[in-house]
């Protein structure tokens, strides 16, 4: 009896132990990121590696590890959307990886949550000279993100369609653009002048394809950091987009069109012009080697002579506030911002460097990059959504109002008033 009882107790203990072991295994447990020999392991979450040539980002990270033998870097790479979700949940639970790839649109929210560290302090602690940085994303005077690589969004023009439509000059003003778009649309074959992606799932069409017209003419959607959407400049942009829609020059399906649809329509010759990221040049050339196209600044208001704002997106970098190894994390930031490394990374990414002194290597690049770099240097990088709270939500609410305008369900004035109200409740 006693032996049986002991056996039962042992069985119970074993079953419980196995159960707990299974749970611990399932939960992953905790990992010690500082080993006994003093080696620190940093986790670096980003979406960059999958967008770069295979293995190229690993090589850069290996170079860093060689230069810093006591620091190991574990790359957590995934597509942009899943990286964003991972970081949103990580920020909420204060479990962000030590170093994080950031989009300027997320910075405000993460900084307000206290999820990302004040890099101004890290720079000071490391004695870092920040004058070499092309830009820093700041909130209340503190830097939370450093743009590593910038991607500009110029106007892409299908030169064959332009020539077929009898337009001999790449449009530079809104009037020229409307005229070219009309002529392309009238040239037959289901071709339209312009592609406008307004899908609300990823509403960045508002930033890249709508507000770019505002920034190109030196306009602003903010005044003293507050929303200013009921200005003549913003109104003229919305009215202009509406006029293009009324003229039937926008490719059908705009209300649910995604960025990739826009690029595909341009690549297949279904639209003559689009505002798009330079990063897509390679993709377009791969899919349509014979497509003859050029890049140009986004057209400005007629008579505008000032510097043209050119929209951009960044691969930004930040350090988690919850990291136990902020100094080591900043070493990685420093390394990626070194002129040589930054230039190399920018070249690989087909973007422009975040370090002012870095020179992208255009030797093996498409000549269009050189042209775009000229546009970039002549203009001003402009993206007023960077650093705003809930910027995706701001884009979405503007998007919905613009959709109402384009479908004739509201007036431009009412849409802007409603957007102003929506934005004002977010940007306090």
């Amino acid at each position, binding site marked *: *009896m*006693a032996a*049986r*009882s002991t056996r*039962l*107790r042992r*069985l*119970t*203990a*074993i*079953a*419980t132990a*196995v*159960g*707990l072991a*299974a*749970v611990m295994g*399932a*939960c992953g447990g905790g990992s010690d990121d500082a080993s006994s020999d003093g080696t620190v392991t940093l986790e670096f979450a980003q979406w960059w590696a999958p967008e770069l040539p295979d293995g190229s980002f690993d090589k850069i990270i290996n170079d860093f590890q060689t230069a810093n033998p006591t620091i190991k870097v574990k790359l957590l790479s995934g597509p942009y959307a899943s990286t*964003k*979700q991972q970081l*949103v949940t990580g920020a*909420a*639970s204060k479990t962000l990886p030590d170093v994080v790839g950031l989009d300027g649109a997320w910075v405000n*929210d993460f900084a*307000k*949550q*206290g999820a990302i560290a004040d890099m101004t302090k890290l720079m000071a602690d490391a004695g870092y000279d920040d004058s070499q940085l092309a830009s820093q994303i700041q909130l209340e005077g503190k830097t939370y993100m450093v743009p590593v690589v910038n991607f500009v969004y110029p106007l892409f023009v299908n030169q064959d369609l332009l020539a077929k439509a009898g337009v001999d000059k790449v449009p530079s003003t809104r009037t020229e653009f409307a005229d070219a778009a009309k002529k392309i649309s009238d040239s037959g074959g*289901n071709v339209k002048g312009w592609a406008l992606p*307004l*899908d*609300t*799932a*990823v509403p960045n069409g508002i930033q890249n394809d709508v507000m770019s017209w505002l920034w190109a003419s030196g306009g602003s959607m903010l005044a003293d950091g507050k929303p200013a959407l009921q200005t003549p400049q913003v109104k003229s942009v919305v009215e202009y987009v509406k006029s293009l829609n009324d003229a039937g020059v926008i*490719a*059908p*399906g*705009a*209300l*649910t*069109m995604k960025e990739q*649809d826009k690029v595909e329509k341009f690549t297949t010759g*279904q639209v003559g012009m689009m505002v798009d990221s330079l990063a897509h040049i390679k993709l377009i050339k791969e899919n349509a080697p014979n497509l003859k196209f050029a890049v140009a600044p986004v057209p400005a208001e007629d008579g505008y002579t000032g510097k043209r704002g050119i929209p951009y997106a960044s691969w930004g970098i930040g350090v988690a506030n919850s990291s136990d190894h902020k100094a080591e994390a900043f070493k990685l930031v420093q390394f990626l911002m070194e002129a040589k490394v930054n230039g190399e990374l920018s070249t690989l990414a087909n973007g422009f460097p975040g370090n002012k002194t870095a020179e992208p290597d255009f030797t093996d690049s498409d000549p269009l990059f050189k042209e775009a770099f000229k546009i970039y240097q002549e203009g001003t990088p402009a993206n007023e959504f960077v650093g705003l709270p*809930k910027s*995706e*939500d701001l884009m*979405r609410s503007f998007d*919905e109002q613009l*959709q*109402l305008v384009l*479908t004739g*369900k509201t007036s431009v004035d009412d849409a802007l008033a409603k957007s102003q109200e929506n934005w004002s409740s977010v940007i306090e």
Partner: protein
Amino acid sequence: MTTAPADPMIKQDRVPPSEPVASGPKRSSVARRLIPFGYLSPTIVLITLLMIVPIVMVISYSFRDNVIVQDNSVFAGLANYTEVLTDPDFLAAIKNTGIFITVSMVAHLLLGLGFAMMLNSPLLGNVTKSLFRVVYVLPWLFTIAVIAVIWRLLLDPSGVANYVLQTLGLINEGVNWLGDPGTALWSVTFANIWSGYPFFMISLLAGLQGIPGELYEAASVDGASPWRKFVHVTLPQLRPVIISMAVLDLIWTSQQFALIWMMTGGGPLNSTEMLSTFTYKLAFSEYEFAMASASAVVVLLLTMILAFFYVRQQRER
């Protein structure tokens, strides 16, 4: 019947101390009772950690304000529920979800039953049946991402659907299926019907093959027409399967997120906004996790009503 021992010493020698006598069997009994829990402990702990804790957390978030994004969230009572339930977008999402899941379920049932009866028909040879079985089950083999891409391409204003319809003379000019608020909901519902009917078909085919042939023979002897056989033999025999599948389909379809998100993102103009996309936007676009939790709890309650009917139906069986 009891006799007192003559010598207390003998009592001490022969009768063991009272405590071990009482605790031995008790311990053994307790251990015996714990054994099943020991074996179940991995499952119990996993369910607690992965289901019960998250659900309780979401419910608790729904009664607080500024959860997750701020450390000092406060109790907000029913404020989040009031805000969500009076939000016109939420009400539109409920309406759209209702249409989406009801039409999908009915179409899944009709298509699934039709195809299952065809595959069960003695009029077709085995090779033909196998061929159709493979063709009909194909949509079920694609992941939602692939289905979304396929239907976005097909329904593009310059896509295959418009080309075919124009060639057949059914429409004069290309329809903007996903970009027009009037057609977007029906388009995503159509894609969902296409992707989901094979599961109904397979389940109903299994049900059809389980109906005893004698019932049909008896009906034939009574002079029943094929239609009467269908109404009075096939449908009553399939009734438990049909009800189970219908309720499960309503539950599953109400949770459909990926297809809507990838095809329309809830647009244009909220015409395809579902409870799932509405909740997602609240959480990951507006960072209103408390309101998103309230919305999720409402969805949970609605789903539980469906689950209640499912469980009751299963018990009746």
